[in-house]
């Protein structure tokens, strides 16, 4: 069985609104059109297709980019090293995040309990903070989508 002719003259968009049964390019402008104009139309169409193809960033295809195995191993080692460094520095820094321990626990334990004023202070502050956070809204100041400079 012979396949339909596909060469540099065949159209890329073949009868887009048709029923798909046409194997030959259909000239929607009729056969009376001069051949030179057809050529111009063809080149203009190709130009549009090329321009569109170069302007489009196919986001779905980005994930499917294959990574060389050696690159994969290199990156894995690099991330692993960085993670180790981060963990080590984090452990030494973490001493500063919380206050130092108690030298004499019995003194702290024997001290009077937390005063109601302090409890009231933190309770009211927690309510204010929660209220403020709930009322927090993002203000629109500038466009999030920035158009690329397409010539």
């Amino acid at each position: 069985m012979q396949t339909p002719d596909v060469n540099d003259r065949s159209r890329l968009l073949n009868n887009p609104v048709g029923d798909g049964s046409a194997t030959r390019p259909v000239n929607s402008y009729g056969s009376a059109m001069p051949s030179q104009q057809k050529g111009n139309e063809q080149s203009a169409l190709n130009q549009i297709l090329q321009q569109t193809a170069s302007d489009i960033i196919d986001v779905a295809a980005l994930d499917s980019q294959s990574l060389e195995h050696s690159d994969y191993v290199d990156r894995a080692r690099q991330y692993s090293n960085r993670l180790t460094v981060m963990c080590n520095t984090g452990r030494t820094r973490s001493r500063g995040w919380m206050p130092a321990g108690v030298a004499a626990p019995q003194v702290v334990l024997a001290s009077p309990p937390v005063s109601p004023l302090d409890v009231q202070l933190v309770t009211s502050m927690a309510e204010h903070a929660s209220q403020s956070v709930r009322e927090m809204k993002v203000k629109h100041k500038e466009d999030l989508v920035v158009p690329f400079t397409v010539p």
Partner: protein
Amino acid sequence: MEKPLDRHLEELMSTPGVTGVVCADTKGLCLAAKGVGERASSGLFSSIAQQAAQLHPDSKTSPVVCLETDQSMILLKNHNSVTTAIHKTLS
């Protein structure tokens, strides 16, 4: 956007004895920090407040947790998914 929260925190910081404050969400993300309050400790505060709340699961209000040290204390309280930690000197 965060001005009301900042205003409350500034008022709190002017309270005698208060040396710092940290606000965090349930995931431990630091929403605000002032004074000696460390941004990096927001996760710990959020976690401690949530763990303490599990001691009394039937309680309608979350507990106030007080971490006491020799010189200062940290008061923790969770309210509607926002944890507030106040650093205070011992009076």
